[in-house]
């Protein structure tokens, strides 16, 4: 199996991406960082609200939204994409809610039925109108960061990076503006309701921003890897800290490290970069898991010593 890995060359793997190939790899790394940041920040709240699998559902069902938007508008435009994704996200949330309140179907089965059906619809639409929609099925599953090299430039940077940067900025601004509301509705929806914070509206707003983040990330990382981007940073951060602001900062850090790590990993292994970023993020999660485990061990040992001493 020697040809499974490309021949290792330290210059090609570690030096070239930051010197001669910077124009290509720089944008790809920046894009990976922006995607992981935006997803990770939203994902923190998803994990707190125990809605990680709703993120899973929406990331799948954005696909038919995109396909329909393509069919209506005929080409790939930003407003059409956003509208399609928003529509799909809200329809998914509504359908899940509808199925499990209006019948004896449990919430987990409702999630499964909804996103599988919508995703299947999306794949069929794309396959049937393949010539019309230049969004191929492979891209949905792998995501292709290297497409960035082909993208048009505007304001001195590739357009997808510009869009993703905008989305990430919006997410940050929204979190700063509505920090208190998000915090209270995530931890105690009943208290939030009694204080007049409208948890229902915050839920919808979160779903809407989730759909937008997912659609912006879609082309670069695909429908399934985006789930990792949503959950990994938040999960890693929450293993290390119990304070939400620290968690948010840590997830941005996680995003940065996994984007850079993913770049080098993909060059070493010769595999798609989006997947490599997730693998790097998983490794970071493993490290955080080990740290939190050791901290727990240390704490029990210390308390044992205290018990013995006293």
């Amino acid at each position, binding site marked *: 199996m020697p040809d499974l890995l490309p021949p290792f060359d330290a210059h090609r793997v570690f030096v070239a991406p930051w010197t001669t190939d910077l124009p290509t790899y720089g944008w790809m790394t920046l894009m990976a960082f922006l995607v992981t940041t935006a997803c990770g920040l939203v994902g923190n709240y998803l994990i707190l609200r125990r809605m990680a699998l709703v993120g899973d559902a929406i990331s799948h069902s954005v696909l038919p939204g995109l396909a329909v938007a393509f069919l209506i508008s005929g080409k790939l435009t930003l407003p059409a994409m956003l509208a399609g994704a928003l529509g799909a996200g809200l329809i998914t949330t509504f359908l899940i809610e509808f199925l499990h309140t*209006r019948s*004896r179907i*449990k919430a987990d089965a409702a999630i499964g039925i909804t996103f599988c059906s919508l995703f*299947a619809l999306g794949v069929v639409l794309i396959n*049937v109108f393949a010539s019309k929609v230049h969004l191929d099925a492979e891209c949905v599953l792998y995501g292709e960061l290297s497409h960035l090299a082909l993208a048009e430039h505007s304001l001195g940077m590739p357009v997808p990076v510009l869009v993703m940067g905008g989305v990430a900025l919006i997410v940050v601004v929204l979190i700063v503006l509505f920090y208190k509301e998000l915090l209270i509705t995530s931890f105690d929806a009943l208290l939030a309701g009694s204080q007049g914070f409208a948890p229902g509206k915050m839920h919808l707003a979160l779903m809407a921003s989730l759909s937008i983040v997912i659609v912006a990330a879609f082309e670069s990382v695909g429908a399934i*890897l985006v789930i*990792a981007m949503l959950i990994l940073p938040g999960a890693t951060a929450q293993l290390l800290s119990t304070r939400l602001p620290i968690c948010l900062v840590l997830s941005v850090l996680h995003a940065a490290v996994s984007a850079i790590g993913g770049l080098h990993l993909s060059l070493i292994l010769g595999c798609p970069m989006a997947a490599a970023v*997730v693998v790097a993020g998983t490794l970071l999660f493993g490290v955080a898991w080990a740290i939190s485990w050791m901290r727990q061990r240390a704490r029990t040992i210390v308390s044992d010593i205290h018990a013995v001493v006293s």
Partner: protein
Amino acid sequence: MRFPKTVVLPVIWLLLTNAAHAARIGDLTETSITEQALRFFTFSDPSLRLALLGCILLGLNCGLLGGFVVVRRMSLVGDTLSHAVLPGVALGFLWNHTKDPLAILIGATLVGCLSMLTVSAITRTTRLKEDAAMGLVLSSFYAIGICLIGMIQRLPSGNKSGIDKFLFGQAAAMNGHDITLMAVTSGLTLLFVTFGYRGLLTLSFHRAFGESLGLPMGFLHHAMMLLISFAVVTAMQAVGVVLVSAMLIIPPATACLLTDRLHRVLILSAIIGIATAVFGAFFSFLGSNLPTGPFMVLAGSLVFTMTFLFSPKQGWLTRLWRQQTQKCRIERENTLKAMYHLAERYGFREEGITLLELANTRREPLEQIRQRSDDLIRQKLATLTEDGSMLHFTPEGWRKASAIVRNHRLWELYLTNIMQYGADHVHDDAEKIEHVLGEDTVRQLERRLDFPQTDPHGKAIPGARDIHAAIAKPNLGKPTGY
């Protein structure tokens, strides 16, 4: 590409109005629909026969196991498993650089078990909840799989391996070995479910109880997880990694809407699973090179939607319709009751009840009363005089009106005499229950109350004889009963 257009167009038409111009796609290169359909139904194509057999086995296997998955609220476990086995598939392929189904099965099953262990390790040792752990394992294992596949595709042997067919599924890509493997795993499932049924039933609904009986709950659980990963891995070839979990969820969820007993759910979901799989294969066959998985899932969700809307007991529309008819019946009975009260006030003269009086009693505009009387006439419960001003009971209408009034008054009496309610507290309660009391309950009430003749407010209770008497003078005041 001709047929799929016609299949999917109606769906699109529902979604968007100006899809027609978008739908004008590539020129026709494939054979016509009818020819393809004929080929499908005559089973003349040996590879088609194989694919079809595979679909039947797949539907059976997933349907049976899915029943337990849905009942135990583990739907998303199937989803996690199906994404997480991807690196196992790639490793199985790397074993000897061919698509050897057995190697892939072993690799994928090992990785599947590893993923489930990781989920339970994360939930046990950290603060993360199960959903986050599942999402995390699902996507990170999947990413590792994608990395491996990306590396495999650079290999000279990997490029034409067809390993990418695992992502969306292609039933036609199955060969004899795949089918044998599927038959073996489906057989195992069938045996397991048949012989372990009682244990599995206990496991599904009350695990702790099963443990207290000394049943091998842990063994059954792990054996089931193993069979589920077998099912997922063997089905992946035909349905694809992403959608295979749908085959574990949609048929049993549909079956759950149709019946209450677990064994019926299992049988039904196996049947629905088979039908779904065959339909999916059929549509994808018509479109030649289309992936099978999405069509199977769409067929399944169509069946699910129909069941969700129209299932006799659980259907959403059926229930709405039932509520609506119930509401209409109650309104009708209230009108009859008002007519009875009027007739009673006038000492049951033989004359009819004027619409105007009825409107006053029910405190409703005359227009609405006219609609109500039309409804009564349609139901043959009353007749209207020629000039349209007076209502008369028909025998059936009289019977219903007296029955309602009797229910109401008996209940009031029961509440005051036996339950010791105050006489001024009982009316509202009786207003509700008069519409639902059954014949047996009424007889029992009469016996308990010793065949009463007047209610707490001193009004006569119509007895059985009055109810069955003609509209003529009721025999009120004299002892009646059954």
